[in-house]
């Protein structure tokens, strides 16, 4: 494989991991807010119990993605930095508010409601901002003035594809987190929360798929290269759809305990679905980072440095795997943690 293609593949992998973790994290924040006041179900407790120990790890993956982008593709920083200064800057602002308020909520009970609502709402706005970067890369929203790239805010903000992308991002986020929290509630044997999340997964799944398909239809004329590329490669997108149907079907199958839904298998299928979809999206996006000005090959660092970095990644993750296993056991498996009152 070309080193630059390998690098962009790693980048998409990191994006995939962050998209999954981020969906869980932001989604859990949102569900925590929705069910915060509701005494009927413990859905909010389950969401917060998951969120407390995990948000830091999620945040690190965001940083990994940014650092990998800059170190694999240093020649892309000038353009990306100029285009994304405002949206990313605003995202950072909200992310800071969310992170700090979420942690503060655990330490200042009196203001808990306000803090939780703030972190829940930002749990929707931040992902919306993040997915709105995608249409920018597809072409048509960037103009080069005096050698200096400018984002055409007017065109972007009035174009339906922006809103379809946002709708797609949000429904996906909520769907993934609902399916996952369903599994998490099952592990904690909390059946009222389980029913709540299953109910939401049932409607969010089909809605997210329909929106995904509609989103492709709303892409601007400049993105024709991308749409063609997607349509020319139906196998991967088909496979992704197949895994969705599989995962959705698992929500209806009765398990050993007589309740509907094989949560663990559903989660796995959905994760595979999005893994395939992101790779399909990524390969359709080649060779551009931003169409038509920035290509993968043109912004790549020098290969020797790249291979040194790869060794660091391999070594680093190898050392961390035992730590992740311990983490998993303590927070996602240990009944004493899951079932605390």
């Amino acid at each position, binding site marked *: 494989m070309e080193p630059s293609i390998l690098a962009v593949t790693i980048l998409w992998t990191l994006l995939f991991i962050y998209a999954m973790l981020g969906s869980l994290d932001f989604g859990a924040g949102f569900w925590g807010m929705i069910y915060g006041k509701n005494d009927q179900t413990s859905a909010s407790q389950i969401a917060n119990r998951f969120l*407390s*120990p*995990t948000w*830091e*790890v999620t*945040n*690190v993956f965001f*940083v990994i993605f*940014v*650092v990998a982008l*800059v*170190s*694999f*593709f*240093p*020649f892309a*920083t*000038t353009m*990306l*930095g*100029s285009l*994304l*200064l*405002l949206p*990313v*800057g*605003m995202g*950072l*602002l909200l*992310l*800071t*508010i969310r*992170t*700090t308020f979420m*942690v*503060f909520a655990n*330490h*200042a*009970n*009196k203001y808990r409601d306000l803090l939780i609502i703030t972190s829940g709402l930002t749990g929707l706005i931040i992902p919306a901002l993040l997915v709105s970067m995608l249409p920018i890369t597809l072409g048509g929203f960037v103009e080069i003035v005096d050698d*200096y790239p400018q984002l055409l805010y007017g065109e972007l903000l009035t174009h339906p594809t922006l809103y379809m992308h946002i709708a797609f991002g949000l429904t996906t986020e909520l769907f993934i987190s609902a399916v996952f929290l369903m599994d998490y509630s099952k592990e904690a044997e909390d059946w009222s929360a389980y029913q709540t999340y299953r109910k939401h997964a049932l409607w969010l799944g089909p809605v997210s798929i329909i929106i995904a398909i509609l989103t492709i239809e709303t892409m601007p004329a400049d993105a024709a290269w991308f749409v063609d590329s997607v349509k020319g490669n139906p196998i991967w997108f088909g496979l992704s759809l197949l895994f969705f149907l599989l995962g959705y079907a698992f929500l209806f199958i009765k398990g050993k305990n007589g309740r509907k839904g094989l949560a663990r298998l559903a989660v796995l299928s959905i994760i595979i679905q999005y893994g395939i979809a992101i790779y399909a999206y990524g390969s359709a996006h080649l060779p551009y980072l931003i169409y038509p000005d920035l290509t993968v090959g043109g912004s790549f*660092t*020098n290969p*020797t*440095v790249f291979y*040194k*970095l790869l060794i*660091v*990644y391999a070594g*680093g993750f190898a*050392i*961390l795997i035992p*730590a992740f296993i*311990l*983490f998993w056991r*303590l*927070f996602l498996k*240990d009944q*004493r*943690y899951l079932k605390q009152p």
Partner: protein
Amino acid sequence: MDIVVMARVLFGSSMGFHIIYATIGVGLPIMIILAEVMYWIKKDEHYALMAKRWTKGFAILLAVSIASGTIVAVLLSLLFPNFMEIVGQVISLPFQLEIFAFLIEAVFMSIYLYAADRLPQGLRVLSITLVAMGATASAILITDVHAWMNTPAGFDISEDGTITNVNVWNAFFNPSFGVTAIHVTLSAYMTVAFLIASIAAIRLMKRHLSSEERSYHKKALMIALYFGAAMSLATAINGHETAQMLHEENPRKLAAAEGLFETTRYAGLSIGGYTSLEDQEVKYAIEIPNALSFLAGDRFDTEVIGLNEYPEELWPPLYVHILFNIMVGIGTLLIVLSLAALFWKHVLKREFPGWMLALLVVSGPLAVIAIEAGWCFSCIGRQPWTITDVLPTAEAATGSSSVGILLISFLTLYVVLLFVTGFVMRYYFKRNPMEQELTAGNG
């Protein structure tokens, strides 16, 4: 304001904000380990409680240090894209390694925080040790990038800015990395020790204190004083080496720090005052003859380079002399203060008088001011370069006109967060007074 200036102000203030929390993040785990170790040795419940309460405080502050760290990491690419273009080619290794340090810290912090009661003692101490190692490692690694900006190495750059002959390890082990990394680490440890001393001193100044509480806060104060004295001495000794490194690697910065214009042997050290451009000297300073030459080269006849060897447009702003003096002055003061307090306790064997407690109360904030002054000295003293003699700041910065609105939003955010964290800390520790936790722990 000019866009470049706004970008510099935005980045500088973001770093100034991050460093407060980050320094605490580096130093506090060490204090927690010290408390855990004391508990192990003395089997005194007070130390266990100290570790527990400091961890709670740490958890609150960690949220802000992670959030603000994420801000600076991303802002660096957004505001100084041309700088990051070179960083990405030459010195991305420490950034990558830093992430693993963050991951280790994040994973074990969650474990220490949310699973401590489910872990055996050994594994618990191991977790907090890994947190401390992760935090210190991340500080050292980020300092590496900063050191490389001051004394760049490991690449060649041609006229048109093309980078060749990259040697990752030469860049990593650039000439100022060693001393600078040690200086940053030691000064972070010392700062947190004095912050803890401050809090304990505030409590001890209260009139109505049960004997239990009094004894608890005294123990905390003593740990902090011992560690603080040791670390402030070490910081000063290593600071001296840092100044010698400047003498070797970047004499222009040392000259600006000391307000020295003419190259001389037997150069004197000016303490205090401000550097006057018209008179080419430091005004209203106390002058110690020959001291600067001795500091720079361990000999009175060492030749120290003055600013006039360089064209004036390459001089850093002359007020860096003040920043440098603030750092060194506070460092010296805190050594004296902590040694005096220990002397009082162990040789005179007397209780601390009110005025000494009052001085101890301000020691923590003073140390934070020293950190801020030191960093601002280091970054502003590098001007007009972002990478010394390679990349001028004006060329490193973005030209995007959105910087202004971000500047205003972020400054507001920082002010609000400073207040809110203070408020949440107070609220939490008021709600959970130490005595109540102690009885709850025993019961």
